């Protein structure tokens, strides 16, 4: 079944990401929000690990293709 696979997850410092990107995005992450944001970043990184396991050729095009 397709539940999250902890094997694919590489730990990282979510607080460092939040502290670096929140000012760039003009977001203020309160102490109340931080645990939830941290948890969701961790989930996202697990998802990213799953998609990075699929190797695609350099020529692969994204699905949306601009048609003038």
């Amino acid at each position, binding site marked *: *079944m*397709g*539940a*999250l*696979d902890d094997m694919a997850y590489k730990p990282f410092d979510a607080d460092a*990401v*939040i502290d670096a*990107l*929140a000012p760039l*995005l*003009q*977001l*203020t*992450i*309160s102490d*109340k*929000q931080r645990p*939830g*944001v941290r*948890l*969701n*970043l961790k*989930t*996202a990184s*697990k*998802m*990213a690990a*799953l*998609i*990075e*396991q*699929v190797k*695609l050729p350099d020529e*692969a*095009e*994204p*699905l*949306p293709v601009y048609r003038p």
Partner: protein
Amino acid sequence: MSVGSSGPSAEMGASEIAQGVRSGRFKARDVVQAALKRVATHNGVLGAFTDVLSDRALAQAEIVDAKVANGIEPGPLAGVPFGVKNLFDVRGIPTRAGSKINRERPPAERDATLIERLEQSGAVLLGALNMGEYAYDFTGENVHDGASRNPHALDRMSGGSSGGSAAAVAGGLVPLSLGSDTNGSIRVPSSLCGLFGLKPTYGRLSRARTFPFVASLDHLGPFARSVRDLALAYDAMQGHDDGDPAMAKRAIEPTATRLRNPLPGARVGIAGGYFAGEGLAQQHVRKVTDALEATRVVNLPDAQAARAAAFLITMAEGAALHLDRLRTRPDDFDPEVRDRLLAGAMLPAAWIEKAQKLRRHFRAEVLKLFEDVDAIIAPATPMQAPLLGQKTAMFGGIELPIRPNMGIFSQPISFIGLPVAAVPIWLDGAELPLGVQVIAAPWREDICLRIAHQLETSGVAKAPLPRGFSET
């Protein structure tokens, strides 16, 4: 079927109602009044409707009745009451999309295209329905409006994010409703509440004048208690609309008149690999595949990665949509939605680009499967309706949060925009249903609906009203 002094019964489906109104056996006004009475009786418990538009509905019913009285064709859905998820624009009320923030918007000036099309077919809009905030939800819970409840077990989730749309139809308040499905928001509540639901091909039905979530994945579609009703509504809503740039310019391809057409030698595949297992969901799939005499297992390659890609695109696009509101009014969001969106704003662009490339790759791989099969069967959800407030559940032997995991089987399919009919399956003696997806190649909604109809007529799929909701 019964027509008492209070009007047509809750059991009656859209096609029966339309037949009765068209033949003059009863009036649209009586149908609408009976539905309004059921809403008044049950909505306090179900939490399905957030806006009830009695005056508008009765006025529309009068128009339908006048057409019948004057020998004017009233439409195939004459007098059928319906509700819409409250992300559809409804003339005269703000489109709240399940949020606190959006209810401060000015009232919508014009109905969403799909509402207009249903009313042009004679249907009558009764009101707007509860949903998870900004459609980022699989539970049917809403911190602002309260939860929509599962009519089969009131202490359980209706599923989300179109929870009110499912609760209203499963509880017999209306025979028809509309919802949206970005990652499973029609199929999940259909599964949990035991309904037929249709998520058409991406680009088939107009999304004009509805509040978006993830533009590249958003679909709209109907819920009903029978396949015929689902097909009637779907047919009425088809047709190009310049108001939605994602629409494919497809001709209208009617399905309701073709439901009984046999599918000679239909080749039905069973989704294996990622979708397989020994759990409860797979027992429901087996009931369907046994009935269809399907034995061929097909593997959707990289389905788990496809689901992950849909998950990331959703986080990123959803965050981009709401970034200004996250900056200025973070405390007015549902905290669970807000924190997912805040994290979504911080995802690297490289992940999203890879996710979009994977979308093309997965699409190509799955389309190859349709050279050998006409339909693929998969579970709609990994579990039956959880308890309201429940945060975690067992997924494949691991305890995980419900919110991000309820869509594991629905997400890979909507990711590539395939049409799906969710069909409600009950195991012998079960008190709760679980839905199964009938998936077809792009633009073959007719196959989804014909197989769903076959399952319905053979008694394998059914959507009975629960005890306590069929009396009025």
